[in-house]
């Protein structure tokens, strides 16, 4: 009988120690990645390759989702605004929600499941098939050669993808609102321009997407590098990447929004 609570406590203790340990190694790994970033810029071709696999390959999903999100925003926004007789504000609604929140957040979520999981799986498999050890035995630092270029490629791609998502979404809102429903085109754009501020809204959106990019990529790289070198280990690490980075995106979004838009 006495064993029950003791076993429970022991499990809690093990959990805590394990997660603190993981946070520690994760931070150390992240710092190492930053320290060994010289090659990513010295031999920029390495990074260009990773911009291709993180950015270009995510292009389709980002553009299509952006278009649809914008179209839905246009439809729903019109329905709501119409009841107050202010459907001209549709442009404001669509653009502000996209630029401030949906663009960075949804693009980052899509990025986590498209590019983040791919990064984890790739690095996990490289480890499982001893490619990482082979690199070490060839006196090549895998952090500098494999991890850092992926990090920078993804971090460069993320704000561009978020901007494309927002632009595409605004185009989708325009399609539904102006072309389909017939909101006045002039007021759609002019009200939008009057309400959206370059620094307050657009720049903050870009900052958000950069932060999300760093978080998603760091998580994906660490999960891949830390994955047990087995098929099961890699698949679990991939799942964990998507779950952890999605939660990180939403949590960070709340913190950043609180900092950016609540203070005057």
């Amino acid at each position, binding site marked *: 009988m006495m064993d029950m609570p003791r076993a429970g406590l022991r499990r809690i203790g093990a959990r805590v120690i394990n997660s603190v340990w993981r946070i520690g190694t994760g931070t150390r790994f992240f710092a190492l990645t930053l320290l060994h970033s010289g090659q990513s810029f010295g031999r920029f071709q390495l990074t260009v390759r990773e911009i291709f696999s993180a950015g270009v390959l995510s292009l389709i999903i980002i553009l299509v989702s952006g278009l649809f999100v914008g179209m839905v925003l246009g439809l729903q926004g019109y329905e709501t605004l119409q009841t107050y007789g202010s459907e001209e504000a549709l442009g404001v609604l669509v653009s502000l929600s996209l630029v401030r929140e949906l663009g960075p957040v949804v693009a980052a979520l899509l990025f986590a499941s498209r590019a983040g999981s791919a990064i984890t799986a790739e690095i996990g498999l490289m480890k499982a*098939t001893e490619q990482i050890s082979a690199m070490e035995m*060839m006196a*090549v630092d895998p952090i500098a050669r494999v991890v850092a270029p992926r990090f920078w490629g993804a971090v460069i791609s993320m704000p561009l993808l978020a901007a494309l998502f927002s632009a595409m979404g605004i185009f989708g809102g325009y399609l539904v609102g102006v072309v389909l429903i017939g909101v006045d085109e002039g007021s759609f754009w002019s009200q939008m321009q009057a309400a959206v501020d370059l620094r307050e809204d657009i720049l903050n959106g870009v900052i958000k997407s950069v932060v999300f990019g760093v978080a998603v990529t760091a998580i994906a790289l660490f999960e891949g590098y830390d994955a047990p070198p087995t098929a099961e280990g890699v698949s679990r690490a991939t799942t964990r990447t998507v779950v952890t980075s999605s939660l990180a995106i939403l949590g960070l979004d709340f913190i950043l929004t609180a900092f950016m838009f609540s203070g005057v």
Partner: protein
Amino acid sequence: MSDNLIEIRDLSFAYGERLVLKGINLTARRGQVVAIMGISGGGKTTLLRLIGGALRPTRGLLRVDGVDMSRVDAVGLYRLRRRMGMLFQFGALFTDMSVFDNVAFPLREHTDLPAEMIHDLVLMKLNAVGLRGAHALMPAELSGGMARRVALARAIALEPRLILYDEPFAGLDPISLGVTGNLIRRLTDTLGITSVVVTHDIQESLRMVDYVYFVSEGVIAAEGTPEQLRASREPFVHQFVHGEEDGPVPFHYPAPAYIHDLELRA
């Protein structure tokens, strides 16, 4: 400079509390092919990883090409590894690069040679393993034996003094196995390098190596030239060489009495 490329004296190694190697003595001279054999889980791969510098000795002396491995720093280790090649069990080719780029990888990372010279060098190395014609293929398009030969070409790209082989014969058909064995022998002789082969393929090894160490339960259980081992009467070596099921290495994992496990009562 001493004639021994690898010198191991009374080497011990423990993973945490568990002692894996208990006082190993081993030497490999320049130009030799040395095999480390033993049953699976006997500490062979650990020994290889120690020589490669992936692990640090717990106790004892381990000297590779004049470098004391228990005291070397990261820079020294990386410098040593440029004189060292390693062939992993399944080749460990970079799956996102072609055969050509795989072999060119160490050259591009460690030298500033112009592209034409790298091109020529890579084709020379591939020619040495008989795969010059396959330079444009991707690793996924290669058979197991071919992948291992490409990995060998990659391992000799920087003309190392020492090549470590981790189970180079595992999972190969008899023809590829013979080809790989001959290749190891030929490269060792023509390039004047030292090869350390971890394997349990006894017949192939006895055919091509100069000296064999048997590792069992963390110690060197037997050693000698192939001729000595073939003639050996030691029960362990005899069991290993002839592949007998039971002997000093038991068929059964240690277990309580069979009768007890089945709960048979008289």
